[in-house]
């Protein structure tokens, strides 16, 4: 066993190590590894090991998402003692900063320099699309653990790129019909003016309209920074809709929901939103302003199934805060990767073997029953309607309805 593998073993077991230190040391390990491979490039005997490249934003506005995903992965790799197909498992994490050009460079480093078996991670759709052709043309595997851009399940599909998270369309289409049947028939739509915002709004609007509902206004706010939300809330106020649909994430989710509450609209006009808007990462900052908001997502903290109860408990123990949907995605991604490597007995050049495995993935995830759809290469998973409620003094997304299992249609026919 090399120094490096010992290093990883200790690291992944010891929860006292912060993520930063792991990255730091993994980098040092990678450097040693790189040197080794340069010095002994003629040496054919390889130490049996599996290396996974992780591309996540650890700086910039998506840093907390990257951290959650990484944390979730660590829980799963811990569960399997960092061994896959009899090999030691290593992770080399790289910071993509949410910039496509940085991500490209890092992806090349992981694949060509560090010789990783496959790459996972990816939070923003821009980065995912930017890497698409690189992975496709080089026939390298990428398991996307967050970015939800619809196109990667549709016109930009590649046999080597699979997604273990969601497509932007996925939670919003069922939500549209549900909202029409259960909340109101006329809606005001608000989302940031970028790819994901449009994806989500299109999915929701199309299903809402197909159910018979009416969109009275669509509002697209500046991205990445919305600035002061007051003018947008005022516009909503003046339109007097029966209901508001919105999608925001991170700091915009906090400022939008809080301003909506401050304007006194939360009692009169109910919000039905994409689950990210009130997900566990932003809910504490929104506080009571988020009470009563209904949202659609593929997971909820309070989901009552054994896998979830186990995961949520472990996460809280390890990291001292609640799990969120990104962590769950990380956890499931880790599971898929580990089982895929097991399936091909550690031989990551066995492309067909890996694709065949991915096509039939099916297991009980914290999200409920989970599979991968061979057509869209996107998860088949339950979509839940959740409502923010106060339970024992804590705000929580409580599942009020399971809308059933959905996957991406794989084409643009449904928005």
């Amino acid at each position, binding site marked *: 066993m090399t120094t490096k593998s010992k290093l990883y073993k200790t690291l992944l077991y010891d929860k006292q190590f912060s993520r*930063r230190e792991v*990255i*730091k040391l*993994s*980098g*040092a390990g*990678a*450097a040693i590894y790189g040197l080794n491979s340069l010095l002994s490039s003629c040496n054919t005997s390889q130490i049996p090991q599996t290396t996974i490249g992780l591309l996540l934003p*650890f*700086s910039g506005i998506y840093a907390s998402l990257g951290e959650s995903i990484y944390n979730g992965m660590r829980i799963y790799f811990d569960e399997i003692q960092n061994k896959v197909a009899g090999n030691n498992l290593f992770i*080399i994490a*790289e*910071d993509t900063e949410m*910039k*496509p*050009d*940085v991500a*490209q*460079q*890092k992806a*090349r*480093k992981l*694949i*060509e*320099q560090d010789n990783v078996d496959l790459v996972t991670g990816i939070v923003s*759709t*821009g980065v995912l*699309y*930017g*890497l*698409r*052709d*690189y992975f496709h*043309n080089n026939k390298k595997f990428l398991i996307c653990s967050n970015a939800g*851009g619809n*196109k990667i399940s549709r*016109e*930009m599909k590649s046999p080597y790129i699979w997604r273990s998270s969601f497509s932007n369309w996925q939670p919003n289409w069922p939500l549209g019909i549900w909202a029409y049947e259960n909340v109101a028939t006329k809606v005001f739509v608000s989302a940031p*003016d*970028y*790819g*994901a915002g*449009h994806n989500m709004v299109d999915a929701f609007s199309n299903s809402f309209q197909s159910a018979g509902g009416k969109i009275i206004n669509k509002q697209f706010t500046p*991205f990445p920074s919305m600035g002061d939300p007051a003018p947008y809330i005022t516009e909503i106020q003046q339109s007097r809709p029966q209901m508001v649909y919105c999608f925001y994430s991170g700091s915009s989710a906090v400022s939008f929901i809080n301003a909506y509450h401050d304007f006194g609209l939360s009692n009169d006009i109910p919000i039905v939103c994409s689950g990210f808007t009130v997900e566990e990462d932003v809910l504490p900052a929104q506080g009571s302003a988020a009470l009563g908001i209904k949202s659609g997502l593929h997971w909820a903290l309070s989901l009552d199934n054994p896998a979830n109860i186990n995961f949520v408990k472990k996460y809280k123990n390890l990291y001292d805060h609640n799990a969120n949907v990104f962590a769950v995605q990380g956890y499931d991604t880790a599971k898929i990767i580990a089982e895929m490597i097991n399936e091909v007995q550690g031989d990551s050049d066995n492309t067909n073997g890996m694709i065949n495995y991915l096509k039939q993935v099916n297991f009980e995830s914290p999200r409920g029953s989970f599979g991968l759809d061979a057509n869209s290469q996107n998860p088949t998973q339950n979509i839940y309607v959740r409502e923010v409620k106060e339970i024992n003094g804590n705000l929580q997304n409580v599942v009020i309805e399971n809308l059933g299992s959905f996957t991406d249609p794989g084409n643009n026919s449904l928005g």
Partner: protein
Amino acid sequence: MNLKQHSIEKNILSNKIILLSISITIMLVLPTVSNNYIISLLIEILIFSIFAMSLDILIGYTGLPSLGHSAFFGLGSYIIAFLNSTNAIALNVSQNILITLPIVILATGIMSFVIGIIAIRAKGIYFLMITLAFAQMLYSISIRWSSVTGGSDGITGILRPNLVIGSWMLQFDSRISFYYLVVAIFFITIILLNQIVNSPFGNTLQGIKSNQQRMLSLGYNVNWYKTASFVISGVVAGISGMLLAQFYWFTSPENIYWTMSGQALIMVVLGGNATLIGPIIGATLMRLLPNVTSSITIYWQSYMGLILIAVVLYARNGIVGTISKIISKNHE
């Protein structure tokens, strides 16, 4: 005196030629001794060097501190995406670089002329603001006009070019062949820009940087020259943007965002402005440092910031400027 200066000039010139031929040889031989990943790093470094050199024409030689140079970089990348990609948005004009390159040059040239003619009327910080404003305007268009630009998702499927003359064809599809194409364009650019900055036109630009009012009273149509400099620099930036898009098979609004301009600005300041070599060194450092350090520390940007502060405070001429100063001092 006359003769001496002349011989010095000749000496410098022959030194330059030797240096150039050595570096060309190194560039040509490098791929045979390095791995695929190193080549990809080299390609990036060369592309960003072209970009940074183009900005140096503006900042270092003409004294126009632009913070909107990403506009042309991004424009170049989008134009090639329209001209030749597998994306539904594309017009698919041709894959032949002999056709696409002139179109990119023409389009970025026209755009930089239009922006330049307005922007150069402002001075100093206002010039900076106005170029920034134009770039952010294009950025915003690239995000909002998604039916044409692909919005924040960018455009994928951009193809690497080929070179067709009659029945003879060269493909730049593989990384190594694309590397040679980038090397060729890099050296053509550096030779052309070097020629430009050492020509009477280059002297004129440096005169404008040094003392604009005096240039006016000597009869120079300063605005005309500034616009010309803006166009040259815009076109070269456009070419580098085109190359990056082809290398990545992808472009996105990030290429137009002001941070891209900022990156180029740092490359120029760090390496040393008005040197042409400086921006290349700056680009090398800026592209290599995150690669080397970010695995070790996620705070590479903070370190970069410290280095930059040190350069601005203690070595205002950048790395190249400071080194050449030290050398010339030792000579005395």
